[in-house]
């Protein structure tokens, strides 16, 4: 069964039926936003059931759109978050990616500015590596990007999309080894993105991100995960009721190959490890559980089939 990421937008009226329907189809809810009378659901549903689901939601005036960015966590990396350089273009990029379903975190580097003096410390590197993808929002000069990019990507092993003011071809030319994706014409500017041209650039980022993510998904499909991250999320929600008391917008963040659980590591590691996914198979059997470098959260990385020889 191939699960595809979708976004459902509709009213609160009878939304519980929509949720039940997704679950009956064998899909999973990734995130649920309730804003006054409106409801936005980000979910995974089986590919062959999209038509059926769309027909089901039609009388409820709901809208179903495929959103390839749902179910991934993206780091938007920016050399600095200095106050006198506000507004940063990265803020708009992070926000725009959220509107199409991605979960983005801004990573403002402590000493990332400048050309010769730019640095990436171990904490920043580890935090970036906990994401599915990193978008580096660099500046306006080719000379600077060429010199500093390799320093800022040292030790980062997740795919990187590089953005900057030089055009796409120039970025590609100066990057060695190549990055996973490039978006040109988008460097530092001092205004909010309002014009059509600005929105077009943000759309280009969404497009490039979707392309890179699909490539990662294809790669994962060669050696599938032992369990789907969205399913693991449900198991944890059922097994640990305390997660409902976490007031973060996403108490459990779904990634492409794992989860970030916003509960203290020391207290919950063993509980999570021993939770049964299915008879005789626990979470500990299907995933590595490690402390996250982000606060005292828990990072769950699902093992591939080749490692466990289990698919549940």
């Amino acid at each position, binding site marked *: 069964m191939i699960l595809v990421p979708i976004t459902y937008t509709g009213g609160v009226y009878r939304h519980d039926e929509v949720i039940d329907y997704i679950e009956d189809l064998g899909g999973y809810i990734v995130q649920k936003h309730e804003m006054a009378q409106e409801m936005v659901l980000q979910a995974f549903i089986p590919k062959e059931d999209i038509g059926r689901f769309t027909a089901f939601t039609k009388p409820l005036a709901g809208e179903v759109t495929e959103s390839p960015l749902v179910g991934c966590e993206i780091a938007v990396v920016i*050399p*600095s978050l*200095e106050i*006198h*350089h506000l507004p940063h273009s990265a803020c708009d990029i992070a926000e725009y990616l959220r509107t199409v379903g991605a979960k983005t975190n801004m990573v403002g580097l402590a000493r990332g*500015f*400048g*050309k*010769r*003096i*730019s640095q990436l410390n171990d904490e920043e590197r580890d935090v970036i590596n906990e994401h599915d993808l990193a978008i580096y929002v660099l*500046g*306006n*000069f*080719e*000379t*600077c990007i060429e010199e500093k990019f390799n320093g800022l990507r040292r030790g980062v092993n997740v795919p990187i999309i590089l953005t900057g*003011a*030089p*055009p796409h071809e*120039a970025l590609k030319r100066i990057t060695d080894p190549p990055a996973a994706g490039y978006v040109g014409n988008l*460097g*530092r*500017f*001092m*205004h909010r993105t309002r014009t059509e041209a600005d929105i077009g650039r943000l759309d280009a980022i969404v497009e490039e991100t979707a392309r890179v993510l699909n490539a990662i998904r294809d790669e994962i499909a060669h050696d599938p995960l032992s369990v789907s991250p969205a399913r693991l999320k449900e198991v944890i929600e059922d097994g640990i009721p305390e997660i409902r008391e976490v007031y973060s917008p996403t108490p459990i963040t779904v990634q492409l190959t794992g989860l970030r659980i916003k509960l203290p590591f020391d207290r919950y590691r063993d509980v999570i490890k021993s939770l049964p996914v299915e008879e005789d198979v626990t979470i500990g059997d299907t995933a590595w559980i490690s402390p996250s470098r982000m606060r005292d959260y828990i990072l769950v990385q699902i093992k591939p089939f080749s490692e466990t020889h289990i698919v549940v």
Partner: protein
Amino acid sequence: MTMLDAFEVECFEEVGQDVYKQITETVLSDHNLTAVISKLRIFIDPRIPIFVAVGTIRDAGARIRVSDIGSVQVQGDNTVISIRDETYLAQFLTRLYDIFGHDHVDQPDRFTVIISEVEIPQDFEQIEIVNRADTVLRDLIYAMTVIAPEGFKVRRESYGKRQFFYAASENTLPEHVVEDMVSGQFALIGEEMA
């Protein structure tokens, strides 16, 4: 940016040059400085790296008086000031507290200030609250900090009566190199460095 007599950004990278031109325009209009600057020239070379901005200002000696901030009406024992322009309201209120004391000055809403039970000086409307010339060059240097590329922390700045310059780099550059560059830029806008 039509108000500037001369405005130029020079950089060997064309893309960077265009973006910095746009950034400068945005920042100057955000900081209300377009009317103040007469000439402005920015030179950026990311290879050195250096950012130099030189320019001249118009007479910025706009004195803001009470009559510029709002209209004054005497109503019995009270004097009511209806605020027209809030820009300098904070300084205006501080000044009123100094003159009349906190007990006699009240601001019941955003656009009304009432001075009660105290005599108003004859030339009250002509009292100077702010002289923009005192702050404009400082504002200008701050705007240059905002425009300059991130990470250019080694700075040299100067402002005189009508000229200013701002040079920034991430490296400590020899004094004569910076000075030569700044005077070279001044020459290009037809000015002699003071």
